[in-house]
């Protein structure tokens, strides 16, 4: 059976290698991606339209904002699905596994984490807020923020982390993030534009149409960051304890 499945793998592999011959050179200006009018439009107009130096963020949060909004919804749904499956399932009783030991949180580890976590969180805020100018944005900032709480859970125990980030916040924060994103979109729709056409926000805020898009992108990224932070932590907390929320990893 293994040999039989190896044959299609080999055939597909050879075909892929054969097709790779037709790829354009790395970074070649003649590549179809660089030649298409879409990318040259973004390169030429991002700075003019939105005043955002980082084109990737501008495409992600503005030109392609609808896609990013539902990416955030997908993250939210994934978290809710894990919660729904694990919440009332499995062995409720704590079964001690043979490799588990009762140990106090290690002094060196906890004190190192005590120093690290604030730095990680400040860096997360920086990545989130500076996403227009430098690489970064809502997803990365949110993941970093969630990781800082996971680090607390790993070095002390899950209960300590849950005091700092109660799990019933995650549903609220996750929903709030999407609400913020869709709210900015809807607000610009009510102001006369299309859904997620941030430039209409210039009607109510004292900024130019370009800067309205610039700042609305920040708002949208904050929404994404909130959802991702909450869902990443709830994923970890539920998966490591099978939904019992005590004594995990």
């Amino acid at each position, binding site marked *: 059976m293994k040999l039989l499945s190896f044959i299609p793998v080999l055939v597909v592999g050879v075909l892929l290698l054969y097709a790779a011959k037709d790829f354009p050179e790395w970074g070649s200006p003649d590549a179809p991606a660089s030649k298409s009018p879409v990318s040259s439009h973004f390169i030429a107009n991002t700075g003019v339209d939105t005043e955002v130096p980082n084109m990737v963020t501008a495409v992600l949060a503005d030109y392609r904002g609808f896609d990013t909004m539902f990416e955030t919804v997908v993250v939210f749904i994934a978290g809710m699905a894990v919660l729904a499956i694990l919440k009332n399932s499995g062995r409720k009783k704590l079964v001690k596994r043979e490799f588990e030991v009762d140990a106090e949180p290690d002094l060196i580890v906890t004190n190192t984490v005590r120093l690290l976590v604030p730095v990680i969180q400040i860096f997360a805020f920086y990545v989130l807020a500076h996403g227009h100018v430098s*690489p970064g944005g809502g997803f990365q900032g949110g993941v*970093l923020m969630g*990781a800082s709480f996971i680090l607390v859970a790993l070095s002390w125990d899950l209960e300590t982390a849950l005091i700092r980030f109660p799990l019933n916040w995650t549903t609220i924060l996750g929903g709030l993030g999407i609400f913020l994103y869709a709210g900015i979109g809807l607000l610009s729709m009510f102001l006369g534009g299309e859904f997620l056409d941030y430039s209409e926000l210039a009607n109510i805020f004292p900024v130019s149409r370009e800067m309205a898009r610039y700042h609305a992108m920040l708002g949208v990224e904050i929404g994404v960051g909130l959802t991702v932070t909450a869902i990443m932590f709830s994923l970890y907390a539920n*998966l*490591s304890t099978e939904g019992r929320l005590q004594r995990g990893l």
Partner: protein
Amino acid sequence: MGLALFNTFILLLLVVAALLALRVKDLLTASVVFAVYSFLMCLLWAEMGAVDVAFTEATVGAGISTVVLIATIFNLKRKSSD
């Protein structure tokens, strides 16, 4: 020349990491090797100039997904059955 050498080295390591992640019987080792794979990918993205993608790969691929995999393995048997 130096860049081509770097790319070849990273790509070779990628193949080794991918094969190792499939072959290893211990799931914990496999997920750590998988994190190595993600980090090598991250280096490759950064070298190509896609810094945003590299950042996402480093945080999500090498960071969170490894933690989530390990958290899941904690509740399963560590040995792979195939």
